[in-house]
């Protein structure tokens, strides 16, 4: 289990972490989302022991990162946001290096390299040098190196940036599988649909703190839907409470059925061309929370 409590980290005047609290339970994937500079990467670097927080505490499986950083690092697998690979070294040699550094013996190392390469679709590439790989293939190598020793805590920092669909599918499947086996996964991304595929719970970071943390469904339950109605008329009719955008009327509402009925009652159903109800998305939630936090501070 990963627990971050009241973390603070400053770079000069900038507060990268400002009372950051986050817990990830075994078997749980937490999708950590937020704008650039919200503190996601800083949090992962604090957990990895790369950065020392100014205040607060992080424990991994009950071990304090500041007191026993090396023991903690044996329990985590990290895939950094930036690609960080050795161009002249093969895929297999990367996996072997990270497996050995994590303490795997020769027999288990061979088995884990085989397993993780299958999971990440790297089997055919094992003896190719990284310089010969595409960007998506390199992403898979980086994530595979984080997974190779089956750590109980995974820290994946935007692992699908620039990845092709095949890479994304393989990566998400492997991460989900590790969570099912009991790993606690902290996964940062800007691609919010990935979090649905991972069946992830959501933590939203804004300006160095977590402002919301729950299942996606519960977080979205408090948001309105957007109702979009098109007519066959040359111009959408002007109606109070509705916004005219291009050739359609839009309204944000908690009661789309009732509002649609009222609209049809006022204008009539004959000219109706199409109706779309767009349910709230994580992006809507994120933008709303970001604005609220900005207003409060």
């Amino acid at each position, binding site marked *: 289990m990963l627990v971050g409590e009241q973390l603070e980290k400053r770079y000069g005047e900038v507060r990268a972490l400002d009372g950051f609290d986050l817990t990830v339970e075994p078997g749980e994937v937490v999708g950590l989302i937020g704008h650039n500079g919200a503190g996601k990467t800083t949090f992962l*670097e604090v957990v*990895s*022991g*790369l*950065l020392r927080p100014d205040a607060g505490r992080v424990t991994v499986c009950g071990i304090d990162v500041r*007191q*026993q*950083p*090396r*023991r903690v*690092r*044996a329990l*985590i697998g*990290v895939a*950094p946001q*930036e*690609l*960080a*690979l*050795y*161009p*002249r*070294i093969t895929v297999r*040699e990367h996996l*072997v*290096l*990270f497996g*050995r*550094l*994590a*303490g795997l013996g020769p027999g288990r190392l061979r088995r884990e390299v085989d397993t993780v390469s299958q999971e990440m679709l790297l089997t055919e590439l094992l003896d190719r*040098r990284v310089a010969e790989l595409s960007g998506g293939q390199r992403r898979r190598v980086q994530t595979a190196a984080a997974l190779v020793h089956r750590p109980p805590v995974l820290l994946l920092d935007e692992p699908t940036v620039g990845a092709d669909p095949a890479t994304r599918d393989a990566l998400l499947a492997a991460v989900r599988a590790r969570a099912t086996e009991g790993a606690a996964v902290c996964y940062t991304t800007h691609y919010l649909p990935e979090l649905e595929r991972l069946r992830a719970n959501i933590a939203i970071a804004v300006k160095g703190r977590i402002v919301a943390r729950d299942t996606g469904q519960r977080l979205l339950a408090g948001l309105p839907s957007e109702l979009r109605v098109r007519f066959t008329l040359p111009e959408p009719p002007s109606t109070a409470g509705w916004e005219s955008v291009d050739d359609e009327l839009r309204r944000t509402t908690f009661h789309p059925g009732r509002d649609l009925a009222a609209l049809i009652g006022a204008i009539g159903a004959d000219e109706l061309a199409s109706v779309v109800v767009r349910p709230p998305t994580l992006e809507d939630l994120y933008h709303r929370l970001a604005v609220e936090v900005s207003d409060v501070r």
Partner: protein
Amino acid sequence: MSDKTLAAPEFRATARRVVGLVQHDFLQLRRDPGPVISRLLMPVVLMVVFEPLYRATARGSGPAIVEAAPRVLVMFSMFAISTVGAALLTERTWRTWSWLRTTPASTWELLAGKTLPLLGVLLLQQALVVGFARLVFGLELAGGVALLAVAGVSWALCILACGALVATFARTNNQLSSVTDVSGLLLSSLGGAVVPIALMPGWLHAVAPISPAHWGVRALQGALLGQTGQALTAAAVLTGLAVVVGAVACWRINRYWGRPELL
């Protein structure tokens, strides 16, 4: 168990990690051997050129090859600082250093893994130069192999530490090259690795000991001539310098490295 306690299983784990890193770095050197080959061969070539020069200016302290061999060795090892620095700086520019630091390997283990292969290269360079000088110019090892090994290892450790420190200050390979080229030439010249100190102006005699090259030449010459006191004193100075400079490099790496913008 605290992180600072190094029990037997932890020692074995440390050894496994260091061996893994050393093998990894040997692989990298093997796949890009150009700089290493040039560092190995150039001193041999230059020694052939310099030997007649030192013979012409011999001042009776010993055979000319005892003047030539340590000097070209020291001069080219000074330039090897750039090889050490580049090996470390590359880890930073590739961002692999930060990633390695998220593994259970400590900074000391990572540094050992990076520098031991380079220590091997430096010792191989010394063995090649001395072996060639012995074969072609009849160089005698009056102080014996053990004394020469002490001198050679202390000099190589000093070079490794200096390379590591320079790497923590440079932000780019161009910066690193500029610093190591200029400082290598300057310190080699000041330390008497290019021209014997006896042939230099009087005020330079006083300045020479500030250069590690001065102690490198003294250690190696002392070992070759069988002057044990001179060789061991110089080796002690070089080892002390290696410890201090290495500790500062480690401190900087621990404290600042990994996120370039923090430097």
